[in-house]
């Protein structure tokens, strides 16, 4: 009796899931024009606040340029449904403007890129999110921060970064690595350039995919043993474009050589040859940490097993090899925790079987809502003066329903987070470029 009930319930759920998935996935990734315009206006005002509130002189011009660039980019993303394509506009531009801005700021404040003892003494080193996994256990044991970052009151202070990381964990999760991280755009860019992979590494996907968990374990244990940020001292590939320890002895000299090698190998050469984001996928310990906390976030990428024909295009094109090929062949498609929610698979799937979704199961409520939206969409608006109010109401209802959908919510949260975190660097870099033409100097001070 109980078994029958369970089976019934199972069948009901399965049927219901399938119905939901079919309706949902067959829908276009595009949103209606009205919704796209409305949500873009919201984005415009939010970014207007963050980019322009303190802008003066040349930076006002660059703030407007960035504001229009980001607003237009978002509109295209949301209205065309080409999420991954337009996401790159934000992500790659953000990463490429980060380093000139950051280096400029360093030179202005301390006269050089190298990290000196002065900054350590003053605890004025900018806090980098990659450091985060290393500071957790020393904090738990001794309540100390083993990184000389300013605690509060700075764009890159420890607590400011903690707020950003917390928001990202709750919203985009590991999507950080494709929407917010100001380093990731480098290997994204390099892996996008070649048309075909020169070296195919799909058969080694398992080992490569999980190597960053090994890195995470190593640096956590290392920092615990030495009470120092060993990743920054030895293994960080980003030092060449940010800041590095001044060469004063053999250790710092070897670390300098290693950081150059790591940058060229992991960020430039490997992504170009493999068309995969090697640094983010296999090396970055923060990415591994984000993978582990990804289950807290509201959004996931899901594959509909009914629609999926097993062509494996998604798995082959995934820049982080996060779609398990075997699971697709077994008709139980699975997206792994290493997924960075870049949307490449959603965009490329010929069956439209992949989508952004909430982590929880679909409900009748959502089902009804989707159905209602479909009905609303199919119903033509009625003409006539008296019908104007009715039409407005219908459109608003439709828009409200659409805004609740993850295909709007997720790109919105990713774009807003990415723009707030990287927007300042974009403005600063453009200001510096304009300053070269106007005042003949890259430095602003």
């Amino acid at each position, binding site marked *: 009796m109980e078994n029958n009930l369970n089976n019934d319930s199972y069948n009901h759920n399965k049927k219901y899931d399938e119905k939901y998935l079919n309706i949902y996935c067959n829908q276009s990734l595009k949103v209606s024009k009205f919704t796209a315009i409305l949500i873009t206006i919201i984005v415009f*005002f*939010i970014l207007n*606040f*963050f980019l322009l*509130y*303190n802008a003066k002189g040349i930076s006002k011009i660059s703030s407007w340029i960035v504001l229009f660039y980001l607003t237009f980019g978002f509109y295209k993303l949301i209205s065309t449904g080409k999420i991954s394509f337009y996401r790159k506009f934000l992500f790659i531009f953000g990463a490429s403007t980060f380093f000139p801005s950051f280096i400029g700021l360093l030179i202005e404040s301390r006269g050089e890129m190298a990290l000196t*003892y*002065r900054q*350590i*003494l*003053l*605890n004025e080193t900018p806090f980098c999110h990659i450091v985060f996994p290393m500071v957790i256990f*020393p*904090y738990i044991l*001794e*309540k*100390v*921060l*083993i990184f*000389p970052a*300013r*605690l*509060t*009151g700075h764009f890159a*202070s*420890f*607590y*400011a970064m*903690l*707020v*950003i990381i917390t*928001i990202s964990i*709750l*919203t985009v999760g590991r999507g950080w690595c494709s929407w917010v991280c100001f380093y990731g755009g480098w290997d994204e860019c390099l892996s996008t350039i070649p048309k075909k992979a020169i070296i195919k590494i799909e058969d080694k996907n398992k080992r490569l995919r999980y190597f960053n968990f090994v890195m995470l374990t190593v640096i956590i244990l290392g920092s615990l043993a030495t*009470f120092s940020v060993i990743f920054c001292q030895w293994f960080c590939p980003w030092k060449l474009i940010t800041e590095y320890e001044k060469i004063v002895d053999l250790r710092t000299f070897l670390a300098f050589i290693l950081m150059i090698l790591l940058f060229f190998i992991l960020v430039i050469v490997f992504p170009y040859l493999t068309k995969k984001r090697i640094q983010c996928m296999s090396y970055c310990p923060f990415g591994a940490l984000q993978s582990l906390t990804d289950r807290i976030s*509201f*959004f996931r990428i899901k594959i509909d097993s009914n629609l999926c024909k097993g062509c494996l295009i998604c798995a082959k094109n995934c820049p982080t090899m996060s779609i398990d090929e075997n699971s697709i062949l077994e008709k139980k498609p699975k997206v792994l925790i290493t997924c960075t929610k870049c949307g490449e698979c959603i965009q490329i799937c010929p069956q439209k079987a992949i989508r952004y979704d*909430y982590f*929880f*199961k679909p*409900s*009748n*409520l*959502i089902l009804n809502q989707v159905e209602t939206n479909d009905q609303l969409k199919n119903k033509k608006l009625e003409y006539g003066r008296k019908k104007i109010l009715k039409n407005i109401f219908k459109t608003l209802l439709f828009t409200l329903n659409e*805004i*609740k959908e993850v295909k709007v*919510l997720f790109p*919105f*949260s990713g774009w*807003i*987070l990415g723009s*707030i975190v990287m927007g300042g660097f974009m403005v600063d870099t453009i200001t510096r470029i304009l300053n070269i033409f106007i005042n003949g100097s890259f430095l602003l001070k």
Partner: protein
Amino acid sequence: MKIINFTKLMIKIITILAVTLVFSIPFWFIFSNSLLEPLFAKILQIRHDPSMSGGPLIASFYDETNDDNGDGSYEYPYHDLFSEKNLSDIIGYEVYRPLIEPPIWQVAIILSKIPNIYNWESGISGIQIAVLIDIDSKDDIDSENFHIQFEQYKDLNLSFQKSNKPNFMILIDGLKRDKAKLIFNDGEIFFIDMILLESEKKIYLQIPLNIRNIQKILDGRETYHYVFSSIQDPLGVNGWLNIRDSASLRSGGGLKWEEGPKIFDLLAPIGFSQKDILSINNTGEDHYIILQPIKVNGFNPNISYLKEKGSQKDSKALSTIQYLIEKVKEEEEIEKKNAEEEFNFKLNSSDDVEKLYALFGLSRFDEAKILVKKILEKEEENPIALAYYGSLVAMEGGKTKNPMLAISLVQKAYIYLDKAVDIILKRLNDNNDQKTIEYAIIVLTNRAVVSSSVPNEIFSKYEIAISDLIKISELLEKEGKIKESANALMQAAILYEKLNKKSDAMAIWLKILGYKDKLAKVELELVKRNYYH
């Protein structure tokens, strides 16, 4: 059925949560500085690993500002290099706990001004600072004195008590960039790391503990330190500038007897004054003055440096804090009562400005707004009305929940506040009577209060608040209101601390220390910061 309903409800709730969370992302950022970061800070209570900044601080000492005149009579040479005064004015000295990893023992000297110690163009580099440390003395004071241990300060005319004979000297002479000399009694010299922090006006010295003779301090023993400064002159004996009875282009002046000490500033231990130490002319066989060391207490080497949360307050300080807290409460009650009486009295005044002052003081802002508009209609450039109007606009900005509107209101408030300050300062230049001073204090206070209340990360107004508060303090001092003047300075020092400009804050705290009459709240802040001795 019930289960299905419950699931539906849960899904609905989570969906609403997700939508709310996503659309609240901008607010997380907006309130990050004012709300979330302090909240995280309160919950996490994180502090930096002290080894990154040279170990935990185990002792700090303070010295008066502007006392770089030896026994009170010394003068700098006439050379242009010294036209800017207080070049060798030591105002603080810090000693950190020695560390095993990295193996260093750090001390820091705080100056009221950081001179260019590498300035060799004129042939005189500027200051020369010496720190002499005794690491193996007993506490008992011996009357027997020493004169010479090191060749380097032979010419300084100093002597030491036998029980506190220095083992080595650290000499900051600017001869090698970012390096100071560590000189042992036997003449052996090492170059040690010196870090000049101009923003902090601090010179950090890192004594390497791979030098065997110094490693003994890792056992946590007490040490004795002599810290003094003078002028560097490469042509002088051992690099010290000569001091004569009267100053010349290349020699200091004011030396009272031939073998007087060539020290411009000295860190005197508690219970001694610099003037007393440097002006005692021994009549015995040894004519040199006897320097008194400052004692640095030891530490427990069995307790990890990570467990020590900075220098602990002693029980005396804690009881003083308790006493002062009570006194602050009493003072506040009296102040409140007096203010209420004053406001009620002025409320009946026929002068609208006086009435406005009273309404504002009694927090009757709606009435104040009506009156302020009335005054401005009559007199467009009334600085008091403009200042109060600015404050009212800023208050509106603080109340509104729309961040864009809040920003524009604060910006609008500054149009009035800045205008009011410009007008009143102009009037103050023309007319220095009591009424104008009183009005200037009101106007500046309005701007200072708004500037210190709005988030600095967005508006960057703390610097304005500080300069206003310093100006207010000067005006109050002119009016003979010393306690209030110290209070205004205290607010400025606190804002400097918020800006992380510790040495600027310290300079103000030391200035406040010099005030004879202080409010209990000012004394409380001084005690909290260990300035009580």
